[in-house]
């Protein structure tokens, strides 16, 4: 039992009149709840059947760090909703976040520690935690610290701190956080341009004009739910309707939501940004002191030249530049394919330059600089880029790695096959996986110590980027553990205990560690005097989130001349020649699977792709005109061949894509990962060229050229939608008037009667 | 005691004539038994009227009323607002009314038929199986032997092939 006694608990339940109860108290008796209609024939005193209890915790389905409230009934989690108090998502939640319940209740979870018999083709046998932890601890104790690697998914908060302590205790510096979709280039570009380590807060809510260079901010970029809130408010919440422009070769979710979709030539977003910047400066829309510096730095990006390079008409460039400068506050963001190209950092710096030129920095509706977070997070050097992973693979091949501990990350799936990462793992004698699921990487492990899911563990998190002020949230278990698994932190602490690292890590449980860490946050607070820590802690557990509503003083932002001089953008470089490989492959993060982590969730598999309504599979998006040229029809199975391999998928005729680009969603094509994900669709990452972005070493995943080969076969393209044309039936009606500005939309034929009471 | 005289004829006209003679001779109710409905019976034995049409009419009216009452009563007593319609909605209820009118009309007609034709028969009655094939029978109730002889004479005189005495109450 945690150290809240029953009396405390009852008080808390009483206090939680809005349905937010604190603490985690559940009897041990619900290990096998399936057997009872109501899990407790004789319920414990502190628990009332039929009354829902809500726990606030943090969503870990993506890196956004939304706060969630989990509704539980009879000790089971029933529904995840956004935590209304959380500044990131304000009560809202995306589809993937909703589906977190199916992570918890996934039928394919790993339920006990497993040890591999023999080599890595052999089966696993069940072992006890004691055996598992001892086996790992023995091995760790016997090898040189420098030969131990810990490869984790990107974690923040105290767990990241715990990893640091643990690896330091082992004398290893080989701690890496690897996420496929971590925006390395965005961090690098911000560092270069603003000198900031944190991402700024993008204030979409108050922006009146948004230029997005490839950032699918509503689908997969950084914090989709928060951006969704901002988008909605900007669209219809304010006096003036926000205008959204999306620049990307393939229309994403954000492209569909935008007022204008501009299909610039892939990889030329940076050029276009500089072209716009040139126009702004040249037309006198920028009047800063360093105007001449800008003029000279941008001299090469005249509208005409940029128009030619980017395939965007000159008048469009002029119009966008003017509108961007005049409609204040405006905001330019970049990411996605634009950021993950050969010159990704340059592109994003160019986007930052646009924000600078029209004065969007540090103001509402533009971008606001974030204060440093209160809880730790991995430094950027801990964030494994593509280059780092290649080095890891190289180390493995050379036999420099004795033990690799993998925590919930799946590099075997998210690294191109051409890197040989999977094969390189053979050079590591012991691979320990802490994953909750049998993913592709875990399938190669020798020992599996399955972690709790996030709904069963203690922890904390900070949203990255923040929301302009300091905030942090605690995650707490909402149900008692389903299986014989342990929280990642507890596994690490268990190992530390066995290794005698109790000096640096004296805690017996992750909860204790988190709680102790939060004493420091309590100490910062204004109410330190009035509230003791226990009261503060209970309040935090109830609210789920802590915030310090102090905006950082953004002050006057001074730009160094060297930054201006270094601004530039090149034509993109692709792997594969134009002649042999006529199409640019545009892989994109699906907003349901992200980098593939959502593929084992049946709700996500069954959720129609927003743009195509395809479920349960992969597809290749092709412009109808291109398809006509190639003689391909919807559903034809094609082979997509790059210089590094090929994958097959059915054709989807997609009107919102450049004719010289083909797009494929990332996320399907798992070889492992449970019944819902296995052997479904194909993974475009497999065939990507192992090309890194020049400054950061991030994978340039949109820089591969491919060709299409018809197979002559039809493939099942399972769609929920039928015909996606309206045929003049007025289903989605439009008006050209904006809210609050004297529109002339006709009233509908039958007035809606509003009856007064 | 033989109390029914039955004459069997080969030809319908002869049977009809025999029945006419019997009636003329004062016999109460001579009956014809034939394999097909015979034409000209009414001219000989008098006009027949039946109550069936009253049954049909009454049944149909009852059916119509109860059909509407069923639909409307259900709608009013067990209110289930549907489609924003008022609870008593005439067009659909008239269809129910119509169907019930016909159903009750049919059932009442059958009832009327059974009652007026005195079917199903509960007791044994005068019958010759040949009358269901190609013979025409005339039968008459006789109170005593003298009457039977008289009837038999008339029947034979009209050309009956065979005259039988059947000990059964004429219906």
């Amino acid at each position, binding site marked *: 039992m945690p150290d809240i006694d029953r009396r405390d608990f009852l008080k808390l339940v009483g206090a939680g009149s809005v349905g937010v109860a604190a603490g985690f108290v559940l009897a041990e008796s619900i290990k096998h709840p399936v057997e009872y209609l109501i899990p407790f024939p004789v319920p414990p005193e502190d628990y009332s059947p039929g009354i829902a209890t809500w726990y606030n915790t943090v969503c870990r389905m993506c890196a956004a760090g939304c706060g969630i409230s989990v509704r539980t009934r009879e000790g089971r989690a029933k529904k995840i909703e956004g935590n209304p108090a959380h500044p990131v998502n304000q009560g809202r939640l995306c589809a993937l976040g909703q589906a977190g319940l199916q992570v918890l209740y996934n039928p394919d979870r790993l339920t006990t520690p497993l040890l591999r018999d023999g080599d890595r083709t052999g089966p696993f046998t069940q072992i006890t935690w004691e055996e598992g932890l001892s086996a790992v601890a023995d091995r760790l104790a016997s090898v040189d610290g420098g030969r131990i690697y810990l490869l984790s998914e990107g974690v923040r908060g105290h767990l990241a701190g715990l990893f640091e302590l643990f690896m330091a205790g082992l004398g290893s510096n080989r701690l890496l956080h690897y996420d496929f979709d971590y925006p390395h280039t965005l961090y690098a570009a911000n560092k270069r341009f603003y000198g900031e380590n944190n991402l700024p807060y993008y204030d979409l809510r108050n922006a009146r004009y948004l230029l997005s260079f490839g950032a699918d901010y509503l689908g997969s970029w950084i914090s989709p739910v928060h951006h969704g809130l901002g988008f909605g408010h900007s669209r219809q919440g304010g006096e003036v309707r926000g205008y959204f422009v999306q620049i990307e070769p393939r229309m994403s979710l954000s492209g569909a939501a935008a007022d204008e979709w501009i299909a610039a030539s892939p990889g030329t977003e940076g050029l276009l940004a500089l072209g716009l910047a040139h126009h702004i400066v040249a037309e006198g829309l920028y009047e800063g002191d360093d105007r001449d510096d800008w003029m000279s730095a941008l001299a090469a990006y005249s509208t005409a030249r940029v128009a030619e390079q980017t395939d965007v008409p000159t008048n469009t460039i002029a119009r966008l530049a003017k509108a961007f400068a005049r409609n204040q506050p405006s905001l330019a963001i970049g990411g996605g394919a634009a950021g993950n190209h050969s010159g990704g950092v340059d592109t994003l710096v160019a986007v930052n330059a646009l924000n600078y030129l029209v004065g969007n920095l540090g103001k509402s509706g533009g971008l606001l600089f974030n204060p440093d977070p209160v809880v730790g997070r991995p430094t950027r050097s801990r964030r494994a880029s593509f280059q780092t992973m290649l080095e890891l693979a190289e180390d493995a091949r050379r036999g420099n790695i004795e033990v690799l501990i993998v925590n919930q990350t799946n590099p075997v799936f998210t690294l191109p096959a051409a890197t040989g990462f999977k094969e390189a793992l053979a050079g590591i004698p012991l691979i320990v996986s802490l994953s909750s699921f049998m993913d592709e990487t875990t399938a190669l492990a020798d020992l599996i110590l399955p972690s709790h899911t996030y709904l069963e563990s203690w922890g904390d998190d900070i949203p990255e980027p923040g929301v302009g002020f300091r905030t942090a949230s605690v995650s707490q278990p909402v149900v008692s553990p389903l299986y014989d698994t342990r929280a990642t932190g507890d596994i690490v602490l268990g190992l530390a205990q066995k290794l005698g690292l109790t000096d640096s890590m004296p805690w017996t449980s992750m909860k204790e560690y988190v709680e102790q860490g939060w004493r420091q946050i309590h100490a910062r607070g204004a109410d330190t005097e009035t509230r003791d820590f226990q009261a503060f802690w209970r309040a935090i557990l109830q609210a789920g989130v802590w915030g310090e509503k102090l905006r950082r003083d953004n002050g006057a932002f001074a730009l160094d001349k060297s930054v201006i001089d270094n601004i530039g953008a090149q034509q993109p470089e692709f792997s594969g020649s134009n002649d042999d490989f006529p199409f640019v492959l545009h892989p994109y993060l699906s907003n349901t699977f992200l980098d593939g982590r959502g593929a084992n969730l049946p709700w996500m598999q069954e959720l129609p792709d927003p743009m195509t309504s395809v479920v349960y599979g992969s597809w290749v998006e092709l412009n109808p005109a291109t398809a006509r040229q190639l003689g391909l029809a919807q559903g034809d199975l094609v082979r997509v061949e790059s210089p590094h391999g090929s994958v097959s998928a059915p054709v989807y005729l997609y009107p919102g894509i450049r004719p010289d680009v083909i797009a494929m969603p990332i996320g399907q094509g798992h070889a492992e990962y449970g019944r819902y994900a296995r052997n479904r669709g194909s993974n475009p990452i497999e065939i990507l060229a192992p090309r890194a972005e020049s400054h950061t070493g991030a994978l340039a995943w949109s820089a591969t050229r491919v060709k299409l080969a018809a197979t002559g076969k039809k493939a099942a393209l399972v769609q929920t939608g039928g015909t996606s044309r309206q045929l003049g039936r007025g289903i989605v009606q439009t008006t050209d008037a904006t809210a609050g500005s004297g529109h002339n939309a006709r009233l509908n034929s039958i007035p809606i009667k509003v009856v007064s009471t | 005691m033989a109390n029914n005289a039955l004459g069997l004829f080969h030809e319908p006209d002869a049977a009809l004539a025999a029945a006419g003679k019997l009636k003329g001779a004062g016999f109460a109710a001579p009956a014809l038994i034939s394999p097909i409905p015979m034409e000209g019976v009414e001219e000989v034995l008098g006009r027949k009227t039946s109550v069936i049409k009253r049954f049909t009419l009454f049944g149909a009216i009852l059916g119509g009323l109860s059909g509407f009452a069923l639909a409307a009563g259900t709608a009013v007593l067990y209110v289930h607002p549907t489609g*924003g319609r008022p609870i008593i909605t005439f067009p659909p209820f008239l269809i129910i009314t119509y169907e019930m009118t016909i159903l009750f009309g049919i059932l009442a007609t059958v009832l009327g038929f059974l009652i007026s034709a005195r079917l199903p028969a509960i007791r044994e009655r005068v019958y010759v199986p040949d009358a269901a094939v190609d013979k025409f029978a005339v039968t008459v109730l006789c109170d005593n032997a003298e009457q039977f002889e008289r009837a038999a004479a008339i029947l034979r005189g009209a050309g009956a092939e065979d005259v039988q005495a059947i000990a059964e109450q004429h219906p």
Partner: protein
Amino acid sequence: MSVVDRFSESWRKYRKPGYYEDFDYAWTMTIDLDRCNGCEACVTACQAENNLPIVGEEDIARGRQMQWIRIERYWDGEYPNARLSFIPMLCQHCDAAPCETVCPVSATYHNQDGLNVQVYNRCIGTRSCAVYCPYEVRYFNYSNHHWPAPLDQQLNPDVSVREKGVMEKCTFCIQRIRQAKDHAKDDGRRRVRDGEVQPACVQTCPTEALVFGDRNDPDSQVSRSLNDPRAYRVLDELNTRPSVVYLKKVVTDGG
């Protein structure tokens, strides 16, 4: 109450069309198409709240998807002027619902909240309501559905799991409405406050495109939304009088 009383009361109350206006509530949803970005959070929220089954790839391929709220997508124009619009489609809770009149067993009818309700236990599976529904928002259970353990532990105890042969559809999260009414009653209030009850889809919508409330309350957010001149109803010409009202998408040419 005697039969005569019952008769006279119903006759008085329901004699003429338009009696819906006297109902306790008139739950209404507005969907701002200018806000909706098609992210489909509503779809999953609904699946989680209402025990919607995972029907599987094979059944979806046969056209048997089961999502009470779905996002329809419509393309206009061709590249490079292609535009994609999304429209969430859920049961419109029509006041003049064609589905209600056709059900032979009254398994679907209008309740005192102005909701078009589906009584699963009463349904015999004629599927005629789905034929009569022009919005195609009624979903039929073509077979029994199974939740591989322990996925079944997620099932919401406030909502039934439907068996094969039963029609189902969006309920406007009637279980939440019931609960809100109970709370109001416990608190001694006559009516549910505006915003006190939100269906799962409305609750989760990241862009706040969905607004839910009682249109009998002129101060409610939904009533204000209804007065937006952009308000329209889908397939208005059919005169089904839906309780789901859409706000037109704004399309401007150039900044």
